[in-house]
């Protein structure tokens, strides 16, 4: 949360690099948040995320750090989605997603401050995949990106370091922290059944 506060402070002071970092990290995450909630309508998602980010800019100074920055933006995005659907009279098309379930949402939002939770929900494989991707989006710093670069794109530690402008040791340390954070986040969301649920994904 302190990093979030620092980022906002730098943005409010007019730091272009802070704006760049903010947009690069949060635009794709918000887009992925909105897309499934709008029936995978790309144009609607663009409009809603754009409206959300404009609102976020106008309210940057009021961000009080009571929730993680992404959680705060998701709250604004949810309202934008409702407004969009109301304006376009497409309420019935709105999808209620697994992570709109109160328990799942609470677990996802508590990733930055893990606590005991064990949602008693049965997941389909597709839902499970989507929730795990949401977990990656909720990880602090750029852990989600680092894990994707390493394990999906097969990039070396040196390449990851180069992408982030940091040295080999710092990149290695970042990757180690990302692994631990991801594992803890999965346990936060899926509770004690995390290992079993994830095993079903790999079956």
């Amino acid at each position: 949360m302190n990093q979030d506060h620092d980022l906002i402070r730098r943005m409010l002071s007019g730091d272009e690099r802070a704006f760049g970092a903010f947009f690069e990290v949060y635009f794709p995450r918000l887009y992925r948040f909105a897309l499934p909630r709008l029936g995978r309508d790309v144009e609607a998602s663009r409009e809603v995320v754009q409206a959300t980010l404009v609102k976020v800019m106008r309210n940057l100074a009021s961000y009080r750090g009571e929730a993680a920055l992404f959680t705060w933006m998701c709250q604004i995005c949810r309202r934008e989605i409702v407004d969009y659907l109301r304006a376009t009279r497409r309420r019935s098309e709105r999808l209620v997603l697994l992570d709109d379930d109160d328990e799942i949402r609470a677990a996802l939002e508590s990733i930055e401050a893990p606590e005991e939770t064990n949602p008693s929900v049965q997941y389909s494989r597709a839902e499970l995949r989507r929730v795990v991707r949401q977990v990656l989006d909720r990880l602090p710093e750029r852990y989600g990106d680092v894990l994707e670069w390493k394990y999906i794109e097969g990039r070396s530690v040196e390449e990851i370091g180069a992408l982030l402008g940091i040295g080999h040791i710092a990149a290695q340390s970042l990757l180690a922290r990302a692994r631990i954070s991801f594992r803890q986040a999965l346990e936060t969301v899926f509770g004690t059944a995390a290992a079993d649920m994830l095993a079903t994904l790999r079956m």
Partner: protein
Amino acid sequence: MSETDDSRETDVELEALMQEIGAREQPDSKMTDAVRELVHAEWLAVVHERRRMRWKAATLAIAASVVLTAGILLFVLPRSGVEPVVARVDRLVGDGAVLVSGGDTAPVIANTQVHAEQTLRTASNVRAALQLAPHLEVRMDQNSEAKFVAADRIVLYRGALYVDASGPQSAPLSIETPFGNIQHVGTQYETRLEESALRIRVRTGEVRWVRDSEETTAQAGEQLSVSKSGVSREPIAVSGGDWQWLAQVAARFELENHSVAEFLDWAGHEMGCEVVYASERAHAAAREVILHGSVEGLTPDSALAAVLSTTHFTYTQAANRITIAMRP
């Protein structure tokens, strides 16, 4: 198994899992550039506006000092243009309440006056009690925000307000929320604004809820839950549990030279309980026995236990009732 083996196994597991879920979807670059350009323009406008306001504030500060140097005693001039006082912060627990007025924020302490159109915001672990009129008090829970539009009108943005308007001639008050407006009819009630619903819990008296052409009332011991889809009603307890936060900002009671009966009236009122006497003898004695000392800093339930332990009275509490008896 060595630590290196463990780490390698974790790596393999993680790789398998990541491969299975696949890469997260990315917005296309054309869309990204278009949104970025628009949001960037908005961000620049916000930054420029902040700089302009700071510059304006600095200019005003200089101008003000020049005016003062010239010997104009502004403080004796009538405060035309200042909004009227609509409430006073009577009690405050915790540090982190602010009053927002225009773009400015100011810290709040006990006895701070709230002017019309000012917004009061409490952080976590901060609670406040405000006096709006002689028989009208509003308590604000932590993480709440409300605008005091006028002495009889509050707009609740988030969190919870508790209204104590149970005096004999309580002033009117309307609380406005995105889920409708609430008016009391001589009562104690809490209204809590959540993300997708409004919860109105009535402790005593009656509350009226209005939204467009819809209208309903809730009686003591009832909760109304209002969402966009409709209104539901259910019975609730009027003491304990969910009401506990109010004890932190309970009304003060001056114990010195007041009777046990007066003290019990206060404790019962704050705890949401009816006080009954096991016998007429107990009731008469409670009116006659005069107390000395102080309950400053004690919550009502702690004060009740502490004070009665020094007297000839005993009490039992069950549901919403405190029964007072004489010690055998």
